């Protein structure tokens, strides 16, 4: 049941109607219904994994209470470790088990009989991170253990952000689950706008680019270096439109139910250095890792000053890469991004926030943006290449003389769509999301809605409803 599918539209319409009209001000009934809706949503993918989700939620809930009750630090630590072992162990089993077994067997040339047929449960990387942060926050006294089981189970399974995030912190969502939600016209309209923008990004932009990038990546060894490089640029926009489009819709649907969830993108296409890019891209994951991995590592390595900081960043980024899946290329993707930080650290520019001086970027700002995006695209080779051999092959094409030829697959329609995305983002770069246009006159707003709706109806590609980040 994808956000852009007819089934989801019907499902959400029913949920919305029952949630507000039938259950109205009955908070408990609303929460019971919300949990059931989340479970129906999840079971629609694969009911078997619903059991895993319920068990995982139960274990985290129980351990949370026990950690909170326990006074002895040793026992507290044991319970936290038990929770982490359970969460990470489950994630490891489903996501990484075969990778390690296969790699081990290959390394030592052993006949491998242990590889299992394991299907990755949808959203496991996202809900596992929610559980981990919950337990760690209790341990660190940032959060009280949740006694309301219904609220907690809802937090883990909340369907708008279930499959691909954002990874909400318990401190943000749990309080909202325990107080009356209010529907306001302002919120509803803003949610509808954000959903419309998300649908445009996914159905029109990402789905139009996707066949071209697939064609390029599958046949890279027969294509010119310029075409492969062009494919990487296109993929940057495809992934941005796909993932931020999904996030826009997730945030919009949550908002329609009266919830504010974590922002996941902040116009990363205008980042002027790599640190800024990661502060604006997949924010919920990077901020999660900053809090639970990077900061403890920095504290650990503080005696080594800049070298310690570099080590912490590189480790953090290797983890970001590995989070995407069990592939060496993902690890290298993370490592490369970590290395991109080195000049910033050495020049003390890590935390420098760059604001645009005017409504049009200066040449220097434009240069910074282009350089940052070029670095991102260069690293994307490691993201899209399924194996190291493919990555080497793609880099080989890019660094060949054929990079100076005119790329194939240049289509006016796609370039135009990319232009629209850039323009929308640029106009709203200081706002909460790309379609926060309440400042405009009603007639302008309506014209914009009609334009986007027309674009979806005319240029939409409706067959491919799955999102790139679902596989992670």
């Amino acid at each position, binding site marked *: 049941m994808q956000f852009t599918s*007819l089934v989801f539209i019907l499902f959400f319409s029913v949920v919305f109607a029952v949630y507000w009209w039938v259950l*109205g001000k009955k908070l408990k009934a609303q929460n019971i219904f919300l949990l059931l809706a989340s479970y129906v949503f999840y079971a629609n993918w694969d009911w078997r994994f619903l059991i895993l989700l319920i068990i995982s939620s139960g274990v985290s809930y129980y351990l949370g209470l026990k950690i909170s009750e326990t006074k002895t630090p040793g026992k507290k630590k044991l319970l936290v470790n038990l929770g982490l072992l359970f969460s990470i162990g489950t994630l490891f089993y489903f996501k990484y088990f075969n990778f390690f077994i296969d790699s081990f067997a290959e390394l030592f040339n052993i006949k491998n009989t242990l590889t299992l047929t394991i299907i990755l449960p949808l959203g496991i990387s996202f809900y596992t991170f929610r559980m981990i942060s919950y337990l760690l926050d209790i341990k660190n006294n940032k959060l009280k253990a949740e006694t309301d089981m219904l609220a907690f189970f809802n937090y883990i399974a909340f369907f708008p952000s279930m499959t691909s995030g954002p990874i909400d912190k318990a401190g943000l969502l749990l309080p909202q689950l325990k107080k009356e939600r209010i*529907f306001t*016209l302002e919120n*509803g309209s803003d949610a*509808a706008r954000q959903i419309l923008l998300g649908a445009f990004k996914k159905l029109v932009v990402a789905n139009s680019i996707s066949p071209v990038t697939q064609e390029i990546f599958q046949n890279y060894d027969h294509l010119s270096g310029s075409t492969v490089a062009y494919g990487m640029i296109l993929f940057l926009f495809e992934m941005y439109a796909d993932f931020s489009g999904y996030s826009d819709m997730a945030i919009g649907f949550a908002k329609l139910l009266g919830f504010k969830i974590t922002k996941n993108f902040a116009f990363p296409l205008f980042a002027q250095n790599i640190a800024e890019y990661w502060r604006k891209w997949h924010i919920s994951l990077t901020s999660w890792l900053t809090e639970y991995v990077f900061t403890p590592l920095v504290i650990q390595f503080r005696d080594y000053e800049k070298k310690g900081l570099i080590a912490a960043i590189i480790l953090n980024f290797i983890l970001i890469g590995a989070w995407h899946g069990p592939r060496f290329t993902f690890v290298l993707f993370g490592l490369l991004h970590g290395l991109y930080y080195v000049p910033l650290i050495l020049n003390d520019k890590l935390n420098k926030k760059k604001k645009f001086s005017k409504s049009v970027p200066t040449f220097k700002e434009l240069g910074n943006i282009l350089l940052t995006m070029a670095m991102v695209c260069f690293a994307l080779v490691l993201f899209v290449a399924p194996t190291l051999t493919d990555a080497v092959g793609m880099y080989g094409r890019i660094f060949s003389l054929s990079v100076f030829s005119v790329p194939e697959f240049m289509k006016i329609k796609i370039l135009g769509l990319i232009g629209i995305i850039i323009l929308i983002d640029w106009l709203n770069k200081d706002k909460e999301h790309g379609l926060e246009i309440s400042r405009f006159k009603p007639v302008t707003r309506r014209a914009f*809605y009609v334009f986007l709706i027309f674009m979806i109806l*005319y240029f939409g590609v*409706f*067959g491919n409803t799955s999102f790139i980040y679902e596989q992670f």
Partner: protein
Amino acid sequence: MNSSDMKKFLFKISFYILAVAAVLLWLGSFADGNTDDNYRHFIGPKPSNIILGDSRGSQALVPDVLDAKFKDRKFDNFSLNLTESPYGQVYLEAIKKKLNPDTKDGIFILTVDPWNVSTGKDVKDAKEYTENTSALADMHFYDIAPNYEYLLKHYPKSWFNIYNDREVIGKSNTYLHKNGWMEVTVDINPADLRKREASKIIQYKEFANTQKVSQDRLNALEDIIKYLDTKGTVYLVRIPGFKGVMDIENAFSPDFNDIIGSVAQKNNVKFIDFSSQYDKYLYTDGNHMYKESGKIFTAQIADSILLDKKMLK
């Protein structure tokens, strides 16, 4: 909940929803034989005489020719393609929905080849069959026009394409007639033909390496025969391809005719095998019969059936 805000919100949003719905309804009303390769299989009326199989059957058997030969009957070609309508339980359930429920004396032509009773070697069970994602697997309505259910579920492109590509502007090269016949119009000059045949050989050689004849599909074929046998007379027909494709087929399943022959014998139905007459027809790509050859081929099948019917009398 602030009910006045909710009302205002719904009021505002309803204009957009209604406008979108109206545009879609209007665009959908232009759906025709140009829309895609399957749409017209789901707009009715429900037939009592039916042709089944894959894309070979969909192009080689022309219902108009059968209608002319069998004066009082109307045929419908319900063959889709290898991915969507190989013999299996999905196809059987779709046939049940497609067929006129009052059918008592129908004629059912089931076209067979080694591919539509095969599965991929790596397929473990029926859950992995390709047809599970086809329209046959999830369509409810088979006889409404315009069929918005089909368009919503299985038309992935913008609905403006339905309007822009409608048949009054010009027939598509792959035009699906109301009676289910897929009319393919391609240039059949010898040079182009040879190119397409060569490419088809490469494709089928690779394909044959990944396939195996499936007992499960053969069982489903029998189930379909048994179901249709209660509603009329079933004929199994093997459609040929050009020599290059037939050689691959015969190497892939040398005893295919024997297998189908025994299925026919077991179920007391007639098996008409045209595989040895491959050189009598023209093919668009070596695999699919050219439309004019298809008309001749269909007439020959009709004659065989008529002869059989006479003999039965």
